């Protein structure tokens, strides 16, 4: 960040510059804005990314749900009060899917930044490491949540409608779930050495998390098929994100999910901050093997 550089180089000395610690709220906000704008710009400039991030859930909604469509309705489970179509059932899961991919995408961008050297620019700024990471997180989540709303608008025209107030009530749930998944992405990014390894994330994180969750089918169905799989689903953080979003659509708070999602957000974020910390972090060691110029 240019502001960071300027601030850092202001007290010019021959030795290592002593970082000014009198950064005010304004400076913090400028930094946050910088990171958000960069994330936003990156998103807007890569129009394919915007389209592809929407195409994925829409394909599930239009094609997968049509193929899998239980035309006779999904049996009633809370928060639903009557029978719902399969499209209606998987919509909260697809919102979760957008957030999940968004989170992993930000993980990818961290690895990319590290390889391309942009990360150094960011990390040498005088702002505390945790602040930079949280800013990065907020920027990523905001973009993901925007995508979710565009998706919901399209789904609305497709006839998948939630109660009107639900669209407002789901916002905090989306944000919190997005934070958890983004924080997980950040943590993972500190463990990935090279960009090429990102496909591993797809295989070992995104798909298992997505499929072993109630996003596509009610958990009682999974329990019927395999009690072991059911237990795995219960250990999956994404399960709780989806249920939190699903209940929020109907104006209800699923306290268990809320607690777990909030707790895991703090845990993942803490771990990511630790991993990125200059002294203890995993990043410095990893950088030696990375293709960083």
């Amino acid at each position: 960040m240019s502001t960071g550089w300027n601030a850092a180089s202001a007290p010019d000395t021959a030795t290592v510059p002593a970082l000014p610690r009198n950064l005010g709220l304004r400076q913090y906000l400028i930094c946050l804005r910088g990171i958000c704008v960069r994330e936003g710009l990156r998103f807007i400039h890569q129009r394919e990314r915007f389209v592809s991030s929407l195409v994925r859930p829409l394909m599930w909604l239009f094609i997968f749900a049509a193929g899998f469509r239980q035309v006779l309705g999904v049996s009633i489970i809370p928060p639903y009060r009557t029978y719902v179509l399969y499209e209606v059932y998987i919509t909260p899961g697809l919102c979760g899917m957008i957030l999940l991919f968004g989170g992993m995408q930000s993980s990818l961008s961290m690895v990319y930044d590290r390889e391309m050297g942009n990360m150094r620019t960011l990390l040498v700024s005088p702002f505390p490491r945790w602040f930079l990471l949280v800013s990065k997180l907020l920027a990523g989540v905001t973009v993901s949540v925007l995508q979710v709303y565009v998706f919901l608008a399209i789904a609305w025209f497709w006839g998948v409608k939630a109660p009107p107030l639900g669209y407002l009530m789901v916002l905090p749930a989306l944000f919190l779930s997005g934070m958890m998944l983004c924080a997980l992405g950040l943590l993972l990014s500190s463990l990935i050495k090279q960009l090429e390894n990102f496909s591993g994330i797809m295989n070992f994180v995104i798909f298992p998390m997505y499929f072993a969750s109630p996003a596509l089918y009610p958990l009682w169905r999974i329990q019927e098929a395999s009690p072991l799989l059911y237990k795995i689903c219960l250990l999956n953080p994404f399960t709780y994100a989806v249920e939190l979003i699903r209940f929020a659509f109907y104006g209800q708070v699923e306290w268990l999910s809320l607690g777990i999602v909030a707790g895991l957000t703090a845990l993942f974020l803490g771990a990511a901050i630790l991993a990125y910390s200059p002294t203890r972090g995993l990043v410095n060691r990893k950088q030696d093997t990375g293709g960083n110029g």
Partner: protein
Amino acid sequence: MKRLGFAALAASACILANPASAFTVYVSNERDNTITIVDSEKMEAVGTIKVGQRPRGITISHDGKVLYVCASDDDTVEMIDTETNQIIGTLPSGPDPELFVLSPDGKTLYVANEDDNLVTVIDVEARSVLSEIPVGVEPEGMGVSPDGSVIVSTSETTNMAHFIDAETHEITDNVLVDTRPRYAEFMPDGSEVWVSAEIGGTVSVIDNETREVTQTITFEIPGLRAEAIQPVGVKIMPDGKKAYVALGPANRVAVINTETYEVEKYVLVGQRVWQLALTPDEKTIISTNGVSNDITFIDTETDEAIQSVTVGQLPWGVVVKPQ
């Protein structure tokens, strides 16, 4: 644990834009031999009444004091006091009564006797049979015109709607409809009779003047085989603008514009939807879903299913107590 008080309140406030006032709903459970009493405001079962074997057709006196239930396997119609929920007597219905209709003046009950190919006319006050009218094979659906002058009986095997003069108890017209006609419902102005055909998968609209089929309404639901669409119960709104048709194993209630005879919407409800009832405030249609053992409340403004409530086994008929 799962819900916050105010969140639930907000949710119900937004789902039920205009909360219905409390009506008492009676559902006959064919396999349980019971009537489930449901509160339409709380949308939950509040009681059960033990009745005779295989209760199917159910209706209520116009003052809401007496419930009439066809106990098909007991070959009788039972009368239940809605104050005490006790059986206060029976009517001589003839064998295997399935469905019936009460005359607009509330004095006469017309009962379809499925096994005997008869329509039995019962004087409710005297509790005696006035006459027995021979109709086609397996009579089932019964409708009465708003002025009480014409009765329509549908026979499942003969595939006919029989128009009967209420004065003379004679059949005046026989109208051929589609296979296995189940239910007959008059337009509120008496101009038309809508007859649903379970196997034929259609609803025939019969002009009450000419006694000819003027329209045949068909149904199509993407992803469902035509055989799964079996129209049964029909309910026409009192203003005559909209009709609801229960489509059996299609698990849907069709909403039909009565001017264009086009299906405007299919509302997803429980499994094997059978009969329908309208609340007196005309805000809610209630469907009985036989296989999933529940009833579904449908908002008539938005035509969206609001909630499903579990009742007894194999719910068949439903009636709402007038206030």
